[in-house]
């Protein structure tokens, strides 16, 4: 199958304008004749649902939370990038575009990234108009800070709660439309499957998590904004409920999954403390503006940090990457931390940690300034670890955080299944093999506020939508399949809980397909995952019934999908014989341990087609063309 990305012709800075001019329009009176399903109410989903309703479309929004305000976008702490150049420090749309392409290790689509940089400025304006309380200077103007992978200050923030405030802005816009009757919101509904009729996405099957009822919902287009799949590793910074089910079920219905091996390991998380641990907590990258990262120079140095003199400390990021220092991009900072710990110089229990030290910044600026900038993060750290970071350096270690891979989409954010659109972290399109800090919020809102409202009109204007009844055989068959899957899971009545399988899968993935991968490990994982999946379907136990609130069942269904999806990830990681961004294959590195890309053979998007459970998926390639940015070895030295 030929993957058509539908990137418009012309110079890169005119493509989006041209495309918007070329897209067909749906006139205001006709918009209400079209219906859209939006799954997920994070930044991308809420902003899309609200904006499409403002335009006049009939929108149904779905979330598995009890309220649309709870999606994990809310946890983003540090900020959102925009090429406003308010700081007069040399920023521009071009520079944000360039930084993002380079930060993604030249594995992102140029045209998508340029559009993202263009609309970034509109996002800030829109959010300000909604009343989002961004940080301001005393003159009343918007404040900025720096983030990894950039040499300008372009990150806007609202204390350490930027994601929360942006999500509340989008949630409030959505609530306004719900109150006006323009959006029908379905809380506590989990998507079980995608309904495809005559080759087009025409609806979804959901399970009501309170009553257990499985039902179908029909529409003219389906938008998935269901986030990433980081929880395949069990331990990650994702929320407990984050899962791959919606995108994976769409994949099983024909949508290609692109670059699943691109996972981001965030360098600054609180280290794991025990086996009972249920999740890992991120400490915002913004801390690296003022915190200095170091480990002892000598292996096995057990002295307390304040007993180690300056001359026996290794500020390894400042040493290795002098021009970016502590603000090196995430993949590079994570690998450097792993390298220091593998070398026996890690600190804390098990030697799995490095120091993030604020003593210089406190000396320079005073405790009050630091508290003003990072107070809530310091409190959070102390609550979790029992240590006060104003006095003792934080201990941090890398953890799974974000997934750059996702369902394949074209320039219109439509998957290869017509009528199925994918937004935000759920798609693959903008971050290449590594996402820069403060760019996830930007992409989620760009897709929802400023891209999909245009491109979905182009799809509807093509016409040819005949009504599909909920009673039609294909719809009923999809509902029945979901019901049967639930019944099957409930009837196994084995001995092991879904959590125990999830934890075991996570360990396999972290060991074999985590921060560093190699052919041997991936091959072992591909052998082990099907065995574990087999065991799951023989021995899992789900107490209770399907006709009530049953959290074990919810988890069981999600873990079942992770157990299939994990294999896909390993296939992708195994086939990509190069290192790039978040995908580090040990066989492919330079002499000083940096990622070694292979542009000759791998400058493409790997989009996988489902061929059956346990059967090797089929690879389709979309060649990446770099017409504006010169492919270069990524250097932050």
């Amino acid at each position, binding site marked *: 199958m030929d993957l058509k990305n539908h990137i418009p012709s012309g110079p890169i800075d005119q493509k989006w304008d041209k495309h918007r001019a070329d897209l067909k329009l749906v006139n205001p009176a006709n918009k209400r004749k079209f219906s859209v399903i939006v799954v997920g109410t994070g930044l991308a989903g809420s*902003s899309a649902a609200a904006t499409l309703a*403002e335009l006049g479309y009939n929108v149904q929004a779905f979330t598995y*939370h*009890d*309220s*649309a*305000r*709870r999606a*994990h976008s809310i*946890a983003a702490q540090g900020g959102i990038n925009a090429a*406003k150049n*308010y700081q007069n420090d040399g920023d521009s749309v071009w520079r944000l575009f360039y930084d993002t392409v380079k930060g993604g290790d030249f594995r992102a689509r140029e045209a998508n990234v340029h559009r993202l940089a263009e609309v970034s400025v*509109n996002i800030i*304006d829109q959010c*300000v*108009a*909604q*009343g989002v*309380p*961004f*940080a*301001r*200077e*005393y003159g*009343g103007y*918007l404040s900025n800070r720096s983030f990894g992978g950039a040499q300008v200050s372009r990150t806007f923030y609202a*204390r350490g*709660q930027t994601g*929360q*405030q942006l999500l509340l802005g989008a*949630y*409030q*816009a959505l*609530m306004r439309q*719900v*109150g006006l009757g323009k959006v029908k*919101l379905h809380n506590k509904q989990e998507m079980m499957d995608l309904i495809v009729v005559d080759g087009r996405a025409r609806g979804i099957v959901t399970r009501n998590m*309170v009553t257990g009822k499985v039902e179908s919902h029909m529409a003219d287009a389906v938008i998935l904004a269901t986030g990433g799949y980081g929880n395949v590793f069990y331990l990650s910074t994702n*929320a*407990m409920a984050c899962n791959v089910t919606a995108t994976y079920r769409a994949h099983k219905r024909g949508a290609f999954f692109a670059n699943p091996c691109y996972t981001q390991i965030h360098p600054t998380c609180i280290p794991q403390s*025990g086996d*009972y*641990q249920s*999740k890992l*907590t*991120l400490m915002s990258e913004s801390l690296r503006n003022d915190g200095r990262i170091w480990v002892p120079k000598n292996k096995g140095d057990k002295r307390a940090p304040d007993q180690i003199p300056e001359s026996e400390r290794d500020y390894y990021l400042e040493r290795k990457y002098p021009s970016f220092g502590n603000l090196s991009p995430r993949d590079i900072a994570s690998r450097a931390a792993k390298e220091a710990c593998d070398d026996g110089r890690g600190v804390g229990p098990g030697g799995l940690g490095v120091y993030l030290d604020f003593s210089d910044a406190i000396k320079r600026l005073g405790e009050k300034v630091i508290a003003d900038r990072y107070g809530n993060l310091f*409190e*959070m750290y102390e*609550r*979790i670890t*029992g240590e006060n970071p104003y006095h003792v350096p934080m201990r941090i270690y890398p953890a799974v955080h974000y997934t750059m891979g996702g369902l394949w989409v074209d320039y219109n954010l439509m998957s290869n299944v017509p009528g199925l659109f994918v937004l935000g972290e759920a798609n693959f399109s903008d971050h290449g093999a590594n996402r820069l800090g403060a760019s996830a919020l930007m992409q989620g809102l760009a897709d929802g*506020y*400023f891209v999909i*409202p245009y491109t979905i009109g182009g799809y509807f204007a093509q016409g040819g939508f005949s009504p599909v009844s909920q009673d039609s055989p294909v719809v009923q068959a999809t509902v029945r399949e979901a019901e049967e899957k639930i019944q099957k899971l409930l009837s196994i009545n084995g*001995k092991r*809980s879904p*959590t125990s399988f999830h934890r075991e899968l996570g360990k396999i993935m972290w060991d074999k397909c985590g921060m560093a991968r190699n052919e041997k490990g991936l091959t072992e994982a591909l052998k082990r995952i099907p065995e574990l999946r087999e065991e799951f379907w023989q021995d899992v136990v789900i*107490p209770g019934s399907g006709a*009530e609130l049953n*959290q074990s069942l919810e988890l069981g269904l999600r873990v079942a999908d992770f157990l299939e999806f994990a294999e896909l990830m390993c296939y992708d990681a195994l086939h990509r014989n190069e290192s790039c961004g978040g995908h580090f294959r040990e066989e492919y590195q330079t002499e000083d341990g940096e990622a070694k890309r292979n542009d000759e053979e791998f400058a493409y998007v790997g989009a996988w087609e489902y061929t059956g459970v346990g059967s090797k998926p089929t690879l389709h390639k979309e060649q990446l063309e770099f017409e504006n940015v010169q492919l270069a070895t990524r250097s932050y030295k």
Partner: protein
Amino acid sequence: MNLRLHIWRQSGPQDTGMLKTYDVANVSEHMSFLEMLDVLNEDLIAKGELPVAFDHDCREGICGTCGMVINGRPHGPLARTTACQLHMRTFKDGDEIYIEPWRARAFPVVRDLVVDRGSFDRIIQKGGFVSVNTGNAQDGNTLPIPKLDADRAMDAAACIGCGACVAACPNASAMLFTAAKIGHLGSVPQGQAERSTRAMNMVLQMDAEGFGACTNHYECEAACPKGISADFIAQMNKDFVSSAFGGRD
């Protein structure tokens, strides 16, 4: 450490519910409160019993999903801390802990410790927003906002919608929640155009949902994991009264 838990079990909205006692052994002080409940639930599943249903998601204290009354206090004994951020080092070996759901008419119990907080969403739907469509906005810096106003807006906007304020209030009032949104939008220029109607409509919806009135106990402020000040209630009352008299503040 070893603990004895008394947990509210209720199979559904129609069930009367009761406290049941469970012993949990070998609890580490580094566990979060919810991880301690995870351990209990894994035990229950192994024994063939139904695990305790409780709401939770981010486990970072920001999503507002988790919420339970721990020894009579919403989110437990620590100030400005959600249940997920409460760690077991706060407790000691041999402690007995009572765990109950939020109790309020407007938050019906769904199961065990899970309650339905849809009433909060319906309050927001009545005016907790600025009516600005996507695309309407002017440049973000055309409207300078004094830092103190922006900070005050942020103080109120930090509300995570968990419902602890309602659970703590002897009248099950949602005044702090409602006032936080009115206070956030009322502190910035963007919120002024609808300030009067916002206060009126949100307060009326709050009453319609069955939340009680405020009698100045300030339990809400003490229980709020984000430390939102009850001063915002005063601002809400001012906006409401001025709206009732047809004023525009």
